[in-house]
Each structure stands twice: as structure tokens, then as C-alpha cells.
């Protein structure tokens, strides 16, 4: 399995202390992992879009926006503090970009300096573990480098925490529980209830990130920590070549006479064919059904 490396310039965590997570009333810590993005047209380093949205989500969660149970009532209980983390080569040019995140209203960022091509997952996991985070937010996929989208999964796996992909809204509902609105294909949404600690990756459909204030970014502190880099064995073996644009899969309309019909066929949600709803069956029966389905789809090979 491939791992996100430095070449996909890392990820960052914004930590935020605010609402209570348990019965003890301990202030909540949110961590956001951010990376250095790449502008799709000019190819220049920039604030990564999804990571900025993750930080925006962290900031509004910290401000208690939309958190009726937590926000206002307990704002005074725990002092909110945001702790951003980035792991990467952190060149001078990249540091200018990182200040863009600070300009969104965070005082400091921990920059975990790594050599080029290193696997950043271990240092990120270590940093998250030490930060005592309850919530870890990341973008869904780095804009540059490997861009495998694996960072949040690997971090969650190492921590042993649940991972929620494609979050668009997170609301603290008290007692360490959070409601996460998850984006599904074709604009659908699903509301999940998750208990902290957890990792969530942010979907591109989340709220736009706030503007970065240049002066605040300049004043913010980049706390550099040079950590030993872990070689990325997978990346070392891989050959990198420019991505090819893959043709989009379009459902073919069988008897489309008009453009409207073709459009509908291409965009409408395809009705599920076959399948079965198993509710009352035992766990074994359900597992068997899933196993058979995976076999039939060729995902698994029969032993």
C-alpha cells in the first residue's frame, strides 16, 4: 500500500481547544493537518484548497458556530487554542504558503521538517498523539506529489481511531459526541454520529475557507522541529510520470432521442439492480452475503 510522502507536501492538523469532550469537561482539542498545495493552472505552490477548508471547519467548530449545546454555554469553560501542524520539506517558498494558513486566524503552526521523499505519516501520528487531540481534520487529497488521499486513513489506522471521509460539517453535540455531515455523490448528505477521538477528511463541498489576512500570517509563528525522516520504501520503488486525463464514464442512454434524455441518462442516479436487504438475518448470514458479492464482483478470489 502506498503511503503519503513528503513529496505530496504533507498534511497539517489544527488543534482547537473548546467544547467539552467528556463528562469531565476537558476542553476539546481539534487538530488539522495541512499541506502545501499547487495551483492547477500555474503550478505554483499555494494554500491547498481542501486543507484550508479543513482549517475553516476547525475554526468554526472552535467558535462554536452551530453548536447549540456546546458553543455558547461552554465557551468560557475551556480556552480555545488552535495548533496547526505541517510535515514536509518546508522550503522558504513553502513557508510563505504555510503563513497563508496562519493568516486565517491561527497564532502558530508546528512545522515538522522532513527530508525530501520521506514518509510523513509516522511523524504526523506522533505529533497527533502527543497533542492529545480529540478531532483530527485533513483535506481529502494533496494537490501535489503523490496525492493518494491515504494520509487521513493511515493516520487513523496508526492511532486506532475511526476515520470519516468527505465531511462537510462537524457539530459538537456534547459528551464527546459529534455530528458529522458527510458528502455523498450527487449532492446527497448523510448525518453521522461519531464519538471522539476520530479522524475526518474534508470534502471539496465543505464551506469555503475564510480569507487569509496577510499581516496576521506574517506575525504568526512557524515552530520548526527537525525530526528524523522515515524513508518511504514504496515511493522509492515507484516511477513517477505525468498523470493522463482519463475519459469520464458516461452511462449510455439506450433509446435517447433528445439531448435531455442523454443528459438524464448521464447524470441520473442509476437504479440498483438486484441485491438484497438483509436486516433480520444473523451476522453470519450477512457476512456470507457480502462475501459472495465480493466473489461475484471479482474483488476476492475463491480459496
Amino acid at each position, binding site marked *: 500500500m502506498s503511503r503519503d510522502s513528503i513529496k505530496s507536501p504533507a498534511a497539517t492538523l489544527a488543534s482547537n481547544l473548546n467544547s467539552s469532550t467528556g463528562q469531565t469537561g476537558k476542553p476539546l482539542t481539534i487538530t488539522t493537518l495541512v499541506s502545501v498545495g499547487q*495551483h492547477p*493552472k500555474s503550478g*505554483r505552490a*499555494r494554500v491547498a484548497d481542501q486543507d484550508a477548508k479543513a482549517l475553516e471547519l476547525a475554526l468554526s467548530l472552535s467558535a462554536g458556530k452551530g453548536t447549540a449545546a456546546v458553543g455558547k454555554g461552554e465557551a468560557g469553560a475551556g480556552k480555545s487554542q488552535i495548533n496547526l501542524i505541517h510535515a514536509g520539506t518546508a522550503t522558504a517558498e513553502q513557508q510563505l504558503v504555510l503563513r497563508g494558513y496562519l493568516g486565517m486566524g491561527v497564532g502558530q503552526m508546528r512545522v515538522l521538517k522532513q527530508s525530501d521523499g520521506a514518509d510523513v505519516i509516522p511523524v504526523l501520528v506522533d505529533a497527533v498523539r502527543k497533542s492529545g487531540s480529540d478531532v483530527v481534520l485533513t483535506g481529502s487529497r494533496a494537490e501535489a506529489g503523490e496525492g493518494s488521499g491515504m494520509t487521513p486513513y493511515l493516520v487513523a489506522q496508526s492511532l486506532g481511531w475511526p476515520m470519516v471521509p468527505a465531511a462537510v460539517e462537524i457539530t459538537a453535540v456534547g459528551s464527546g459526541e459529534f455530528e458529522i455531515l458527510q458528502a455523498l455523490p450527487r449532492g446527497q448528505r448523510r448525518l453521522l454520529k461519531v464519538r471522539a477521538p476520530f479522524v475526518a477528511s474534508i470534502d471539496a463541498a465543505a464551506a469555503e475557507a*475564510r*480569507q*487569509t489576512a496577510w499581516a*496576521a500570517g*506574517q*506575525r504568526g509563528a512557524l515552530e520548526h522541529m527537525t525530526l528524523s525522516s522515515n524513508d518511504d520504501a514504496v515511493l522509492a520503488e515507484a516511477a513517477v510520470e505525468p498523470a493522463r486525463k482519463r475519459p469520464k464514464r458516461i452511462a449510455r442512454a439506450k433509446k435517447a432521442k433528445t439531448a435531455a434524455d442523454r443528459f438524464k441518462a448521464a447524470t441520473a442516479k442509476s437504479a440498483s439492480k438486484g441485491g438484497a436487504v438483509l436486516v433480520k438475518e444473523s451476522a453470519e448470514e450477512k457476512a456470507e452475503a457480502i462475501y459472495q458479492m465480493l466473489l461475484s464482483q471479482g474483488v476476492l478470489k475463491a480459496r
Partner: protein
Amino acid sequence: MLESVIPWLLAGFIAVLVAGMLRRISLWRAGQPQQVNLVAGLMAMPRRYLVDLHHVVDRDKVMSNTHVATAGGFVASMLLIILVHGFGLDSVWLARALLLTTVVMFIGALFVFRRRLNPPSRLSKGPWMRLPKSLLTFAATFFVVSLPAAGVLPDGFGSGVLAFILLAGIVAGLGEMLFGMGWAGPMKHAFAGALHLAFHRRPERFGGGRSTGLKLLDLDTSNGKTLGVAKPTDFKWNQLLGFDACVQCGRCEAMCPAFAAGQPLNPKKLIQDMVVGLAGGTDAKYAGSPYPGKDVGNAKGSPIEVITEGLVSQETLWSCTTCRACVEECPMMIEHVDAIVDMRRFLTLEQGSTPGKGSETLQNLIATDNPNGNDPQSRSWWAADQNIPLMSEKKEADVLFWVSDGAFDMRSQRILRSFVKILKAANVDFAYLGDEERDSGDVARRLGDDATFQSLAKRNIATLKQYKFKRIVTTDPHAFHCLKNEYPDLGGNYEVLHHTRLINELVAGGKIKLDALTTAGTVTYHDPCYLGRYNGEYDAPRDVLKAMGIELAEMERSGFRSRCCGGGGAAPITDIPGERRIADMRMDDIRETGADLVAVGCQQCTAMLEGVVEPRPQVQDIAEMVAAQLVEIEQPASKREVA
């Protein structure tokens, strides 16, 4: 009896005046330091007042004469009063001179009174309605009081009841004129105005000069200072002084396109709010037109409070198109646009609260060097078929063609192509930067992001440094202004021309010949703000149109009074809602002339005016009109080839 009281009254009022002045000065000194030459400024002040300021006031002849009589009469009277009544100089001729000056002042005050009978909406009411009565009282009282000294009436005159009436008149008159001058009455304008002229932040404006480039912002964030203006004390001290000079005549309000469009901006109210800020208090006493859609009385401020938190709303600051119409019209030469951009700098750089598409535009400028996020490597695509020499290959040319961001816009590309056609027809030795060019930084700067402006400008200057050229020519007045007036602060000094100026030169020099344009019908010309008011280029475009045999049907608001198209100051990006669109109002101005075609010299103006729904007059850039009327000048060489 009266004669013995007057000296003490005078001394008392003058003492109060001086105390008030010192307090006012201390309010201004709370601002940021700014070097001025005190002596030279004070020496230059009378000339600035009598010549430069008078030129502006003189646009309204009646008011100008009124002011000369009233103010001149008052100043002369006051000096003579101190001599005659204060020091008791026993001179019949001095007293007679005093009679004359009070008469002059009285006549002037009568005209002030007449104007206040049915005042236009732009004038502030409140204490200003009282002023003509105070002026009349002052002049009449001192006329009567001086009659005995002038030998017209016997010395014993003025006793009993009359003495009390005269005493009341003296107190009322001196109260308004001296107490009011020091303690923020309407007469404050005379005191603050005189010093404002002496210590103006842009002394280049006097003596017919022009100073329109925004001041460079010090981007040092390590010294604990906020960038831009958050609180009134963040202004330079002489900016605060300038706000205090306002006479609330409302000429700015009458000219402001945003005010006319019903956007929440009134330049006069803004300056008065700054006065509230520097002195502390509320705007409850303000008696002029409000910001459209906002009630007066809710604004509070103090020198150390953030302006946008209670004194002025952010939308007010973002409504400005930076067209400079207010500055051009202000008889006190107050710099509204500087103040607005200073406050925008705080909002953008410190707070990150640029409205509308501002944030996106700035991000694009940072990441792609153009405001719409186009691929910077596609900047020269418009010229793919134009065969224009690239500076990077040619290294040297007479004229460097600055293309500007119109390169990405298909409508603007028509203007660019037309201009290239003209340049080629005239065999001008020119080249362009192609993909090496970047946005000039104009939009970033008007949005308050001086960091991005300076970054773009420095990189542009570094690019330009590589090549040899005599002049830069551009079809975009905004880039023109930036390159010409704002790059020198960063070390880029160039001779910059607007394309109409170059075309005019080519026509005058016989390099191109133009057919008469007879099919266009009635033609009018819209002066772009950044070409006209910012750079004084009113003649070249008109001369070019004349060369095509066009007799312009001028709009009422043309030349230095031209109304903005609504496209300046990043206003289309911040997009503050109003009741009307500025472009629609400008198109109405154009329709009033009965024009079938409006000639423009700016791609932004073209875009704004063409955005008005049809039916409307056609909109064309002068370059397009000229390109269509080009007559081939027969080359002797080619003639021989044909033969």
C-alpha cells in the same frame, strides 16, 4: 461704557480661541508622525489659499465671490477691530477702513444668507444654518460700534439700551467667529483649513501639479504596528488635520457615483465620521445627507477605537470606486481616496475581510499573476496571429507595449488587436513582454492588499529592467497609472503613454492617415477616471477623435468632472449593492447627448458600459475607431514593385 468693555471681551475671546486651537492641535498630534516642512508650508500657505484653493472654489462663481467678500471682509475687520477697539488706536482712517471692511463682509454674508434660504441637499444644515446670521450680526454690530471712532457719530453714542443690544451682538459675533473657530463650530474650517493647506500630505498638488499615486505601505510587521488604518490615530497627523478642514459643502457628495447609485457611501459623511473619530463622540450632531440606507445617530467612535467597529461600516469603505471625483471637487483639497484605501488596507491585510470576490481575486493574483486565475502561460495567446516581436527575443525597442489583463478577455482583445494594427501601419518599432508580463497590481492595491501589489510591481520592474525601451504604451489607464505614478516608489521610473497619446502623435506626425468617420452619427467621449482625473489626459483622445472629423457632443459631466463607469477601485469585485448601477447612470449621461456612439479609452469602461442592456449607444475604444479609419499610406517602394 461699551468702549471700555470691548478690549476685555476681545482679549477673553482670543484667549478662549487660542485654548481651543491648542486642544485641536493636540487631537491632530495623536496621529502618526509625518515629516513636513513647517516653515516652507506656512510660507506657501497664503499662495495655496489665494490661488490653488480659489481655483477650485471659483468653479462656482457666485459662491467664490461670496466667500472672497465674507472671508476677506472678516479677516480685515478682525485685524482692524484688534487695532481700533482692542488697542484703542485713535485713528479716524483706521476706523473708516473698518467700516468699509464690515460693509464688504456684510454684503458677502447676505449672499451666504440667500444661499441658506433654500439650501441644496448637499449642504449640511444644523449649525451651518446659523452661520450667515452670525456673520451678519458680527459685521453689523462692529459697523455700528465703530461709527463713533470713525467720527460719523458723536462719542457718546451707544449707551443705555442700545449698548446692551450692541454688547449682545458683539458676544454673539465673537462667539461664533472666535470661540467657534477654536471649539469645533462651523468656523473651525478657517483655522484647520489654513493649516491643512500649509501641511498638506501631497504638496505637489499646489501650483498646478498632480499627485495621485497611492502612498507606499510599510510592510514591516515586526514592530507591532498594525498595517493600514484601524483607529483614527493610525492616520498620519496631517490626514487628521485634513479631515478637520472640511466645510461640509457637499460638493463631493454631489459628484460621488456611489452616493448617486444609492450605495452606502457619502464622502462628506465619511470625512465627518473621521472628525467624530479623531475627537471622540457620536454622529448625532451631523446635519447633512446620510450614507444612503443608513440612519444618522448610530455611529460612535474615539481616537483609539477601531473605525469599522461602530463608526463606519465596512460596506461604506468598499463602495468607493476610487474615481477621485470627490478629491477633484473638494475646495479644501481633502484626500478622501487615500483615507479610504488606508482603511481598506487594514481590512484586507489585518482582518482578511475583503468582501465579494475580493479574496478569490487576491488569491488568483498571488498564484497566477492575473485576477481571474488564468494560466499565466496563456497570457500571450491573444496575439498568436499578430506576429508581435517579443521583448525577450528583441531586447530593445522604441516602444514597449504593455498589454495588461485585457489579454485574457475577448472583448478587450479586439481593442488590443486594433492598436497593434495601428502600430504596424505606422511602422512603430515596438515589442511586448508576452507571458513575462504580470498584472500591474492595480486591483490588489485598490483592494487594500499592498503586499500583493508590491510583490507584483517589484517583479514587473525586475522584468522591465532586462530590456531597453524608450517608452511604455498601454491601452489600460489603470496599468498606465500604476506604471507611471506608483512604480517610481519601488524604483521603476518610466515614460508611460496612454495609447491615445501615441496615436495622436502618429497622426500629428503624419505616420498614419485617417479617413473621416461620417457614418457613426453623434459621438460622445467618456473620460476614464484613471486617464483624466488621475493623469490629466483630456486632450489626446479628443484630438484623435477630431482628426477623424468627429465633432463631439460633450456630456455635461466630462473632462475633470467625468462620472465614473463604476469599474474602478475594484468595485465590480467587491460588488456592494445599491439602488442603481453606476454604469446605468453613466449610460443615461451618454444618452442625454443623443449619442449613437460613445468613444472610450479604457477596457474596463468598455466592459462596464457595454454591460448596460440594449438598446443603448454603441461603445467603442478609440483604438478600434482609429483602426477602422486607417488609410494606407502608399509607400514609394511598394509602388515601384507594382509598376
